[in-house]
């Protein structure tokens, strides 16, 4: 009986010590990471200057409809009549006929402003984030169209499936108080 009790005590002592060790370890971890820990949460964003508009954003997002959409910085736009982000290469006519449009879902709305300028706005409900217009705009235009993660849609996965598939390493974690990397303006608007 006494042997048994002694055994039990030794065991209890060991368990208590180990528990204390674990607690200390957890505390130490907090201590080590306290400096690294950001008060802010982080969100995913695309660096538009690294993005090559490969089209992975449209297909790799875990959402049925990608959280990445085309974004337009109107201040950079040339308001061209022959917009290479809007029209197919060598379009039959410069009108909004589906056969002339680059966008597979017709998400870019073209509106006449004044001669010879047209305004192009993105209908986010239709945009699938394929980046075809971005490619066209970057190739021959001002590059005012670019892809961004839209945070009203993004689930903020711990491991973004598009980031894994991104060939140019354009996906980065940014702090939630500056969740966009807009082109043209200050980079962290």
């Amino acid at each position: 009986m006494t042997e048994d009790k002694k055994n039990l005590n030794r065991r209890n002592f060991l368990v208590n010590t180990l528990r204390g060790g674990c607690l200390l370890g957890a505390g130490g971890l907090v201590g080590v990471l306290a400096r690294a820990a950001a008060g802010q949460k982080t969100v995913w964003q695309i660096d538009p200057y690294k993005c090559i508009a490969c089209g992975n954003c449209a297909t790799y997002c875990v959402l049925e409809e990608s959280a990445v959409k085309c974004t337009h910085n109107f201040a950079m736009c040339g308001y061209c009549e022959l917009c290479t982000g809007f029209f197919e290469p060598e379009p039959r006519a410069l009108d909004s006929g589906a056969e002339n449009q680059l966008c597979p879902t017709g998400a870019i709305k073209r509106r006449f402003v004044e001669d010879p300028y047209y305004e192009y706005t993105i209908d986010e409900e239709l945009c699938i984030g394929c980046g075809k217009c971005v490619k066209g705009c970057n190739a021959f235009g001002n590059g005012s169209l670019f892809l961004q993660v839209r945070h009203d849609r993004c689930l903020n996965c711990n491991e973004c499936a598009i980031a894994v598939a991104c060939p140019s390493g354009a996906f980065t974690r940014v702090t939630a108080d500056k969740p966009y990397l807009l082109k043209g303006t200050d980079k962290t608007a």
Partner: protein
Amino acid sequence: MRQLCYRIIILSLLLLPGRFAWAVERFPPPDFESGHQLPLTTTPAPRAMIYEYLDVAVLLAALSLAAYLVLKRRSRRAIFALMLFSLLYFGFWRKGCICPIGAVQNVTLAIFDSGYAIPVTVLLFFLLPLVFTLFFGRVFCAAVCPLGAIQDAVLVRPVRLPEWVDHVVGLLAYVYLGAALLFAATGSAFIICQYDPFVSFFRLTGGLNILILGGSLLLIGLFIGRPYCRFLCPYGVILRWFSRVSRLRVTITPNDCINCRLCEESCPFGAIQRPTTEYHIPPPDKERLSFVVLLVLLPVFMLLGGWSISKVNEPLARMHKTVRLAERVYLEENKQVSDTTDESDAFRTTGQPVEELYRQAQEIRRQYSWGGWLLGGFIGLVIGGKSLGLAVRRQRSSYEANPARCLACGRCYIYCPIERRKIAKNCE
């Protein structure tokens, strides 16, 4: 005043080249005569920070409640209700992200990569269940983890597995944890998140492979209780260790066990251990001998494991993007392939020298050659430790829940006649 002017001039001189460097204004933006106002670029805000803290608060509350329900209230029904709430909140409402299982990787990355700032909420998600496990056992698994909850909810016809299955297949979880830590520490991938089997159910959308994986785990889970938790969950491994030294833990009976055997079949997770008087155990001197032999063999296991994993560190290193890119670029530079990929094209547009890329890849490979030994050594240690644990049997005079394997689900409580008598008394 004059100084201010100078400053403005210098500042604008500094800014101007920068501005022209990135602006590709092939067509200068027009000056509208009609006074057309430019629309603003919309930037919808992410989920507010306050809700992140709300998640942590819900986690804390759910853990506390779970500890109370498991240890004090001893009610399977209440635990199940809390489990369903967690499934709805952390699973379907919060879409399974961030979860403590995945947070393991964020913590690892933060330790090894000083450039990665881990959000406080993620750190708390990692730590809170651990601290609770240290004091109350695996109450997190019981009623808070959404991955556990979805499996527990589909468990309709539990089949008891032979004990060796738990011991052998359960080793997978250790390998998974080790690999996940290695890939996270090198900044290669978060495999726990990539292969999270149930997250696509929470989001109600996802890749086919993951849906098949999750679906088959749920199908298996109809008969074999919580297959992911028992055989795969990497966070569960840490919880198993912590639960072994927990201050309080699940007891099958509220009082002294009378060895009536009624609870024997109640645990679907094989966590109930029979008293050692029930079966044959080898004599102590024989047991001691095998213990010593295994203890001597432990370093051999570790070295063997380390050696074998370090043999495959090159394929392992390909988990890292930079290594894959460097290998691809090397092939292209040496004309071993004729075409290019999106990755290599994107790399060339950056203008980074190839040697720099090779150097980076070499650095990562070096990390992996270390990491391979560590991972293999860890696997060897786990296998050795497991055999050591099996070699010595603790004397038990009553039915006990194995602290490491018990998921604190509370199914066994009602099987105990003492518990029933207590309930009946309380009702009177």
